[in-house]
């Protein structure tokens, strides 16, 4: 029963249990940082090795394995069954690969933290949940992972919280995710109702059935709800607000969960169910519009932020927007392609920022170790961090030759060529291009203000490069951020023949067919590529010149350029305030005012404060008359009356 593949799932769980329970029960164990850290890392590295061998030995035959039958009820058999197929293999490679690197990095980063063991237990638990989410063969196991990653994310966001007010804020992530979960559950039950199964392969086979396709938009609600669920997990309008707040957690967590893996779960799920989505073009349209808005809004916000992690967080939201734009264009493989390249460079960026924060903190160089206004010229002392950060910055900015260029260009071109079928996509393409320009700008700003220019931190503070345990993962990720894009060369080159990634996924994931448009308007392909060249290199150079000339003062020029709108950008488009007004307060009102008469008050008013007085008969009678009992009776009688009236006359 225990095949080698099942270790992929079981080892991280085992690690979490051993470390968690060991740490809880034994104080001496908690101190063994090396043991804990490397044990946890091994529990991810071994699965990575297994996935790697399966990846290279892949024969186009999905590897299925099942742990045991979970439940059988009413003809519905749900098992803990997993599948390593075209889609889940590359995703698992990223999750375990990047996950292992981040584990190792964390050994250095979390050094001497009192919650060291807890941190690694959570991380391993997260990898377990994420593996469930990705490899699940049916929706229920997927949902287990879906909830699990949310839970781990929540635990890790709140990792350093010490006071109630912040802790309450940490709940936002969980609650927002619950809105998504609600959509997910309803979608799940709708799928069950429509298909009578919760098995991915059966659902997809049914949906790809031409007869089913003819039935029009019967998948409308399912796909819309899945998308809503995805907006929760993958931080899109309207449910993205939790992601920037999530940055309060330790930085490796931001890298692993809130950049590279968990937040892409929504995209993964939509790709998983791609036949359903292909059959509902209306929902794809909704997706593409929402994604474009999210993307540009987040990019604009990122320009006006000064917290290094906030900038990266909004950048993540924006990049996730790009992935959803690809989904909306029906380019599912492209979305996964961007998920992978993004995992490389964004993980590298976050880990780099972690390295910076670590250094700033240790040198006590500034009040707020995350404020880029108090940084500058850190590259002098932190060569590796600076270099890898710049490489990843150039990658995300879309400089040709680096990973981000390939995937982003592919997204933009698929949007553009969709435009020949539906004009809306042209507009979305324009927004996407604008966002790409903004991305190049704010990322250059961030990198420059952090690593170059004048030093603005306290004079006398000694900044040190981080330990090799932290820089080696940075270098590995930076190399991947350079090379990662070559698995998907543009269509231009040999009509897509060299797009290895598309070939890999091709059997399982069906994109919207743009072949026709691509051939017909081939000239645009060249134009787009040229445009991407000019725009990315131009913007990076422009931003670099601007900030190298004026340093921090260049922000004022940006402010001048945007005018009043800059306030909106700096204020993060006021989403939090909006939610407070339309959601939080009405809910509180329902609770406190509307349902108040139906809520019992506990001990009756007249006897409160009487302490442990011995209640005599007289007091009992007194309480009866003043008390709530008669109120309750009146209300109960009201209920009885309603029931009887309905039954007799209704």
């Amino acid at each position: 029963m225990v095949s080698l593949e099942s270790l992929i799932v079981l080892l991280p769980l085992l690690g979490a249990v051993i470390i968690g329970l060991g740490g809880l029960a034994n104080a001496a164990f908690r101190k063994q940082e090396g043991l804990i850290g490397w044990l946890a890392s091994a529990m991810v590295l071994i699965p990575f090795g297994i996935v790697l061998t399966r990846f290279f030995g892949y024969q186009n035959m999905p590897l299925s394995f099942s742990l045991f039958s979970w439940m059988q009820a009413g003809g519905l058999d749900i098992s803990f069954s997993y599948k390593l197929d075209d889609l889940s293999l590359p995703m698992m490679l990223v999750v375990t690969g990047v996950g292992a690197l981040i584990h190792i990095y964390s050994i250095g980063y979390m050094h001497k933290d009192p919650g060291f063991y807890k941190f690694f237990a959570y991380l391993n638990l997260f990898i377990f949940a994420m593996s469930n989410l990705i490899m699940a063969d049916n929706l229920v196991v997927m949902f287990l992972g879906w909830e699990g990653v949310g839970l781990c994310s929540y635990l890790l966001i709140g990792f350093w919280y010490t006071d109630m007010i912040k802790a309450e804020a940490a709940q936002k992530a969980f609650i927002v995710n619950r809105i998504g979960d609600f959509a997910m559950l309803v979608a799940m039950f709708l799928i069950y109702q429509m298909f009578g199964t919760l098995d991915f392969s059966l659902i997809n086979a049914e949906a790809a059935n031409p007869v089913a396709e003819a039935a029009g938009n019967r998948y409308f609600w399912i796909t819309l709800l899945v998308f809503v669920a995805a907006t929760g997990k993958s931080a899109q309008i309207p449910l993205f607000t939790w992601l920037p707040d999530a940055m309060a957690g330790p930085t490796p967590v931001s890298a692993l969960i809130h950049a590279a893996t968990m937040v892409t779960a929504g995209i993964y799920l939509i790709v998983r169910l791609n036949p359903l989505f292909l059959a509902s073009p209306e929902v794809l349209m909704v997706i593409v519009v929402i994604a474009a808005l999210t993307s540009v809004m987040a990019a604009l916000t990122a320009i006006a932020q000064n917290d290094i992690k906030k900038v990266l967080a909004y950048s993540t939201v924006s990049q996730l927007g790009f992935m959803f734009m690809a989904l909306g264009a029906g380019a599912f493989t492209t979305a996964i392609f961007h998920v992978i390249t993004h995992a490389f460079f964004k993980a590298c960026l976050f880990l780099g920022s972690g390295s910076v924060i670590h250094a700033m903190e240790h040198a006590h160089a500034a009040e707020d170790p995350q404020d880029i206004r108090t940084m500058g010229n850190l590259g002098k002392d932190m060569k590796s961090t600076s270099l890898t950060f710049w490489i990843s910055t150039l990658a995300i900015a879309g400089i040709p030759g680096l990973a981000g260029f390939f995937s982003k260009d592919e997204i933009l071109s698929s949007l553009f060529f969709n435009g020949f079928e539906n004009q809306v996509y042209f507009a979305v393409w324009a927004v996407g291009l604008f966002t790409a320009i903004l991305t190049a700008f704010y990322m250059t700003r961030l990198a420059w203000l952090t690593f170059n220019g004048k030093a603005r931190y306290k004079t006398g503070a000694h900044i040190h490069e981080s330990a090799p345990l932290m820089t080696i993962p940075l270098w590995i990720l930076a190399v991947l951020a350079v090379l990662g894009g070559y698995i998907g060369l543009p269509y231009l080159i040999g009509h897509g023949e060299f797009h290895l990634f598309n070939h890999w996924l091709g059997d399982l994931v069906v994109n919207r067919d743009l072949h026709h448009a691509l051939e017909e308007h081939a000239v645009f392909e060249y134009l787009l590529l040229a445009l991407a060249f000019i725009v990315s290199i131009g913007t990076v150079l422009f931003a670099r010149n601007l900030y190298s000339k004026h340093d921090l003062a260049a922000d004022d020029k940006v402010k001048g350029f945007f005018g009043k709108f800059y306030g909106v950008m700096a204020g993060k488009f006021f989403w939090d305030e909006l939610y407070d007004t339309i959601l939080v307060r009405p809910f509180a009102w329902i609770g406190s005012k509307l349902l108040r008469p139906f809520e019992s008050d506990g001990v009756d008013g007249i006897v409160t404060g009487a302490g442990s007085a011995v209640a005599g008969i007289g007091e009992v009678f007194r309480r009866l008359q003043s008390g709530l009992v008669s109120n309750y009776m009146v209300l109960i009688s009201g209920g009885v009356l309603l029931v009887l009236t309905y039954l007799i006359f209704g």
Partner: protein
Amino acid sequence: MVEIILFWLFSILGIAGAVGLIFNRNPIYAALSLIINFFSIAGLYLSLRAEFLAVIQILVYAGAIMVLFLFVIMLLNLQTEEKAEKFDAKRGIAFLFGLAFAAEMIYALRSFASEGQTPLAAQFDYGQVEPIGRSLMTSFLFPFEMISVVLLAALIGAIVVARKHTYT
């Protein structure tokens, strides 16, 4: 004809007793009103040929329980309530609910007579001692025995609640 007269007599008396119970400020009078109510109900049982039930009603309720009530009232020396209570909104609503409930019951029970089949209650012969004894010892043996558990539990409860707290 006599039955109908008796029915109205006992009904009106019974209701009057119940109303008196609620509205009397003096606990002794209230308890005595309750006796009137019990007696009238016994009368109704009698007119329904449930002689045994009527006797038991008088013995148990009007006899034992009422005496106990009166003892308690007198032992505790409960006083007449001084001030008449205000007729506030809650009481108003409760009163309305009561009226509506009564109306619905009357409507429903009137339909009972008017519509459909006659109920099976025609076979009713449980009023006398013998059939009651017979069914308690046969078909209702189990519930009859199980009622003793209720009584036992109530007994323990009374002791738990009433005894002086001598927690050891």
